[in-house]
């Protein structure tokens, strides 16, 4: 196992370097000049030139590349072209909010989704099943932009239960979490349901059932174990998406997260922030994937990596 992990970590290095290089090149290939954007719509040529120099854009592309890559390995992620603060501080200011929302949404989605899915499976083709399945379809198909605004209309404007925007109090977390987890609940419920159905169709279930009601606990236990692998996969995959891709939810609820920072930075051609963010995402995704694979091997002893 240790050898496996070691190999994965070594292979991660070229992947991360590749991701960083691609993000560096991409930002420079798309049209648009950060100095021009920063100087503003009515600025003069002299201003743009001076900013280019201050931002280090007047150096050769090779120079800029080595400065960037060198900075990554020493932990210097550069200075934001938009705010002139360090990129690291910009990212760190948003990171806790993003992680919080991701963790909350995933937890809610797993709890609610699994419960729904298992109940649906046990109640197969019954009322509960239809209800859960319909909810899943809604969750998976409704765009976050729409469900978010609908929640605001119902729960903020009409009922006045929860605030619309910001991140000050615990009430501010409810609607963004509901919006973000809505999709995941659907996804996870479907997975839990099919895993549970699979368990219920196994031979040994008949004999367990014959023993009586208390056997349900055993059956559900089996079902959950069966469902855990696909659900762990989903968590691993979705965590990365949630960290960078929650931009619609962040925008509607004015949640100060990383998604918004990155989209803003792309529009304003804030190269350093975009480059550093993509690099950090690559690292995070690699780590998450590795951790997910290790958890697999732990949860299901049949899985072996050392060959």
């Amino acid at each position, binding site marked *: 196992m240790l050898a496996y992990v070691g190999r994965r970590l070594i292979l991660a290095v070229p992947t991360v370097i590749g991701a960083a290089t691609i993000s560096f090149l991409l930002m420079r290939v798309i*049209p*648009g*000049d950060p100095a*021009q*954007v*920063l*100087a*503003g*719509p*009515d*600025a*003069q*040529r002299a*201003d743009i030139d*001076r*900013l280019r120099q201050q931002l280090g854009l007047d150096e050769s592309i090779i120079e800029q590349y080595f400065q960037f890559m060198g900075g990554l390995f020493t932990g210097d992620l550069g200075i934001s072209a938009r*705010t*002139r*603060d360090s990129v690291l501080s*910009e990212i760190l*200011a948003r990171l806790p909010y993003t992680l919080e929302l991701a963790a909350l949404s995933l937890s809610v989605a797993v709890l609610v989704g699994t419960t729904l899915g298992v109940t649906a499976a046990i*109640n197969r*083709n*019954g*009322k509960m099943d*239809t*209800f859960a399945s*319909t909810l899943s379809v*809604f969750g998976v198909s409704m765009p976050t932009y*729409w469900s978010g*605004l*609908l929640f*605001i*209309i119902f729960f*903020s*404007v*009409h*009922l*006045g*239960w*929860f*605030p*619309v*925007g*910001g*991140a*000050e*109090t*615990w*009430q501010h977390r409810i609607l963004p979490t509901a919006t973000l987890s809505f999709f995941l609940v659907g996804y996870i419920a479907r997975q839990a349901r099919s895993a549970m159905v699979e368990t219920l169709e196994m031979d040994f279930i008949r004999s367990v059932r014959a023993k009586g009601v208390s056997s349900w606990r055993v059956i559900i236990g089996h079902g959950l174990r069966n469902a855990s692998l696909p659900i762990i996969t989903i968590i691993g995959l979705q965590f990365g998406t949630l960290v960078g891709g929650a931009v619609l939810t962040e*925008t*509607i609820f*004015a949640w*100060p997260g990383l998604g*918004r*920072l990155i989209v*803003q930075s792309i*529009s*304003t*051609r804030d190269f350093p922030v975009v480059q550093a963010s993509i690099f950090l995402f690559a690292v995070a995704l690699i780590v998450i994937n590795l951790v997910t694979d290790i958890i697999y091997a732990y949860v299901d002893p049949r899985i072996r990596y050392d060959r």
Partner: protein
Amino acid sequence: MNGVMGARAFRAMAIAMVLAMAAAGCASGQSASESSESEVASPAGLDGSPSGDGSDAGGAAPGTLTIAIDAPMDTLDPAAQNSTGVMMRVMTMVESLTWLDEEGQLQPLLATEWEASEDGLTWTFTLRDDVTFHDGETFNAEAVKFSLDRLLDPDTEAAQAGTFSQISEVRVVDDTHVEIVTDSPYPVLPRVLSQPMAGIISPASVEVAPNTLAHIEEPVGTGPYMFESHSADEALVVKANRNYWGDAPTYETQRWEIIPDASSRQAMLQTGEADIVWNPPAASLPSLTEDESVRLEPVEYPGTLLININTQSDHQPLLQDPEVRKALSHAVNPDVLIDQLLSGAGIPAHGPVPSSMFGDCDEAGHYEYDRDLARQMLADAGADGMEVTFYVPQGRYLNDFTVGEAIAGQLREVGLDVTIKPPTDFATFLGTVWSPLGERPDDIDLMMIGSGAVHLDASKAMYNFHSESLPPNGYNGALYENPQLDEVLNEADRTVNTEERAELLCEGQRILIEDAPAIWMYTPTFPTAMSSELDGLVSIPNGMIFANWVDQA
């Protein structure tokens, strides 16, 4: 177990759920305005903003004024300012020598009067003697020199220092008199000094963390409000300066919250989370105008939305003929664009300079919408059916691309064959249209853009047609080169006497109207929505609002 009947019932319920959601979504426009009249329970746990009611009967200062705005607070450093939405927030804390009032007129602020020398090169400003900075330091000529020197220092992270590059020296005469020397006569100096880049900060404040000489994070000025806290993408909080030299600010705290989505901002007005909302959704303007619990204050963009006509186009040489260009001006109808596409959020333009700017001249004339005349003129010039390519931005101005498509329709109605380039994001658009002449695509016959001047001076508005502004040096998208205009603008920029200057600027406008290198359409406006129980919002026609003296109506 559960019969087929049960399953069917639940399917029906599911369908009902879909319809209910759809109905709610469609009805949201209506119900959103209705609900603002009913009592909406204020969400618990918020910062206790009194929302304009329940505050004071006995003259005690009301608590927190919450303003929801979309633009993030990019930088708090006065010298680094580059956009009006951010500038106005810095200006609650940092003041300049002069300011522009609600009519765009230049007024004294930290300076009480000013005068230029005979040769126009030295300006003497007399300063107030009763002003203190937020950190207790005295405001004086030293502070003015320090702040302006800092702005001109190439190491400072200034974005628009170019407008001030004419200043060669700042001299302290005594505590209340400062001399500003320019390289050549610079008549707009008092005006450009009204901008926050020339804001006066306490020299001692750059030594106090987290500020440094090159980068200020917590500005210390003389304004009615003082810096309290700032969290990126969340909120800027400023608190009242009870030692302010001018009219006392009303609210104890102003909280500028960053709320990027326009619908969310509007919802916050309805729930009471925000007292003032910047730029609500344009589609809501009709319902907000009807709503008696909401007051709308229009804010003007400091310039005009126009269409540059490529006066040197090889792709469409007919555009080199001024008669053809004038015909195009007659073909565009800005009134219908404003009414139908902007929900009324615009003021039709009468020429290159909006009325809010110094030097605006009505006598220069303008073009009336007249389709038949346009067709006639095009036919006479042999230009009917001519092909043109039109570059339109998207996502920068209200409904910009839709407006562009409508204009293309209006041009087609007079027989033109218009091709609109597919939209790109604004940074790409800028990069394309302002690239150097050799690299620039050669089919930019018409391009839509906004152009103006934050310090509201006609010369800057017209300078985009000066030959010095040809890309990439400037924004002369019409590639217009007229030595006559150059001469008039150059002279206006040397003439300190205001009457003579105004006359020259008028001459410049006459030339531009006569030659028609562009179609000037309208000045975009956008509303600020607030509770009708509040009043006193100050709106400057360069895109800024000030809530320092907002109070109960």
